[in-house]
């Protein structure tokens, strides 16, 4: 797995998200109310809505298209809905956000 420095934590608004383009598609990187950083595929399991555009609350995001709520920790849909998106390894070191993209890169090359 390769770790990529994608920017600093303050590049993402609190309770917000930014989008990261990779060759394998878009990744949504979230910063929660408690300053935790998560990354998941930017693609709702329901109808492919851009999760990075949703409202972030707790450790979850509500998809802007049809209000599915996706857990940022597990990538699973919460509540009555069924489905999941892939979670992406992410870590914060000295205020920098690092994303682990082993598989994606391997697939890309």
């Amino acid at each position: 797995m390769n770790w990529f420095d994608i920017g600093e934590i303050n590049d993402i608004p609190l309770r917000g998200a930014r989008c990261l383009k990779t060759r394998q598609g878009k990744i949504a990187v979230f910063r929660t109310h408690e300053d935790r950083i998560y990354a998941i595929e930017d693609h709702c399991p329901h109808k492919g809505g851009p999760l990075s555009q949703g409202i972030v609350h707790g450790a979850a995001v509500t998809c802007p298209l049809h209000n599915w709520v996706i857990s940022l920790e597990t990538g699973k849909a919460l509540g009555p809905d069924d489905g999941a998106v892939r979670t992406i390894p992410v870590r914060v070191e000295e205020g920098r956000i690092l994303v682990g993209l082993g598989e994606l890169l391997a697939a890309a090359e």
Partner: protein
Amino acid sequence: MTEKLVIVGNGMAPGRMLEHLLEAAPNRFQITIFNAEPRVNYDRIMLSPVLSGEKQYEEIVIHGDGWYIKHGITLYKGHKVVAIDRDAKTITSNQGVTETYDKLVIATGSVPFVIPVPGKDLPGVLSYRDLDDVSAMLVAAQSRETAVVIGGGLLGLEAAAGLAERGMDVTVLHVMPTLMERQLDPAAGYLLQQAVEERGIKVRTKANTKAILGNGKVEGVELETGEIIPATLVVMAVGIRPNVVLATEAGLEVKRGIVTDNRMVTSDPDILSVGECTEIDGRVYGLVAPLYEMAKVAAAQLAGTEAKRFVHADTPTKLKVTGIDLYSIGDFADGEDREEIILRDASAGIYKRVILQDNKIIGTVLFGETADGPWFNELKKKAVDISGIRDTLIFGQAFQGGVSTDPLAAIAALADDAEVCGCNGVCKSTITSVIAEKGLTSLEDVRAHTKASASCGTCTGLVEKIMTLTLGDGYNPAVVQPMCGCTDLGHDDVRRLIKAKSLKTIPQVMQELEWKTSCGCAKCRPALNYYLVADWPAEYADDYQSRFINERVHANIQKDGTYSVVPRMWGGVTSAGELRAIADVVDKFAIPAVKVTGGQRIDMLGVRKEDLPAVWADLGKAGFVSGHAYAKGLRTVKTCVGTDWCRFGTQDSTGLGVRIEKFMWGSWTPAKVKMAVSGCPRNCAEATCKDVGVICVDSGYEIHFAGAAGLDIKGTEVLGQVRTEEEALEVIVALTQMYREQGRYLERIYKWARRIGRDEIQRQIIDDPQKRKAYFDRFVFSQKFAQVDPWSQRVSGKDKHEFSPIAPISFNEAAE
């Protein structure tokens, strides 16, 4: 011939007396009332909720002006009666009105007791007695400075709690060692003090006031000890005295109060007395229940229908401070011949004490959990021998005789004559029989017919349970739908508390209103954000992370994640230049679809998010601003061509539409607002299915509202007709502002109107020019902060990160 009945005073007791009298003998008297206060009869018990912001004056009016007119009663507001001539049988007011009477009722109430210390007359020293006092306190509270309340009794504590809710730093001075010592024993008094202090109110017991200090206005209170407590407001709530001046001067028998027999007749057989000014059997009263009893007796006496007699009964004491539950009744002093049963739960803050004499309850003090109060009171009233249930008595009714803990079972077990509403003396069987007789199904109806829970409202739960029991599934209590899973509060409660507690940020709302989640959810956050924007336009900083994506990027998200862009076309009017600019933008950014919307403008669909700022920049150069096609706010004002071109047009409908749109654009509302102006009743602009519509006619403008053409289809209702464009604009703006202030988030105007009632909206917007102007002014004020084109803000770089991906990944950057 009808007799003349004159009433001096227009408080709750004479008001209630009149209700009984009009029912028993509707045409017997020609009635005239003199009221020293310049207003109608209102519910004085509810002054505390008005002070704390939980209620408005309008909500506590008992008899509106219409009631007096309907019953042919002459009401002199602001007339103080200064003399009674018992020989001539006349009374005279301070404004020179003289009226003869056959029967006179004195209901002058009481006056607050003012402790005779130096400085008692300084400006800023208030009592707590009527609406004027409350208004003065509200003005003083705006300063958010320090207040001292002298008196730790019922009124003093309610005043203190209200002022603290309003943001003042409050100290209560109480001369006795514990609070409310006349109603509570020292242990409960201590718990009460703790509960009061938890609200940030300072309490000083054994505090004797020596003087009120200040030069021209209040600056502080000096205690006997020499200590000085600074204060910009001093409220004296140390007690009341029957107001007997008028009766004394008239030569009636007066002791502490105006002496009456048990038929409420004074020493003059043609003069009765009811209310707090009355003394009967050596007792004067301050709580509402015995006063209402007096009203009943006096009405019967005047109607000559039945020989009702006033009988003393103990009245329970309750404190109307949200979150503090206490209940006390009867005699709770220690004594040789008395026993007591006590239950304490320190961690839960519960204290219960029942005082027994000869195995019968003579007094009860409950703190923290008061549901069993009426049951204890019932046992006391009936002098039930409790030896059989002594072991479990203190645990309350639910624990008796294996009765299940089902709350309904406890209600079912209540005796038919058990008192449910203490204020109005309504027993269980009255409620059940009226429900059956009149087929009542709503709480409001039961209130109207029985008065149960219509005064202080603390028995509402009990009344609802009785309704459930009587009606079974036929009764659906108006359950408040919580905003979302993050709170138990409904939208209305949240809006009210935001105002009442001056909550000005989302975290503050969540903290103060005890949100169950750390930062809300996608349902409550946008709602809270709107309420704060609407309520504090000058102060609140919009929280973009609490806005739905459309309002965050000022465009509508489409199913593929692209956006649609709709520039404003005022009133649907455009030009060759504008159309050319749109065509250029479509070409330059390869926008795949262009469409005319239902609101007379042009929609560019399929714009990539990264392109949005550049698209707006180009549109901005051509003079376009955002059309807010995405907003819970003003969308379009659709128009027809009106007198400019149309052979049927009666007014300049296009011009009015453009004017409304230019005046109101940018305003946020609970849900989207669509408007239209049609130049004649042929209604080409389809104004009669809009949130707000105008139909121009020869004589002016018919203002319509509450239409819908979406999930629901509904024609508009007519709000009113006005003569000029100015008036039309003012009415529309005021209506919108009223909706902005009262609507629940996502509730369209037609749903809001259904909830509030067209009559009420008409009353405020059409019939009351002052209210209309006030709404209008508040809208204009909030527009100062709202009419900023979000597109140009974005073009100039605001929150740029929104439109670009975070750093692109290049393979060389791999950290390892």
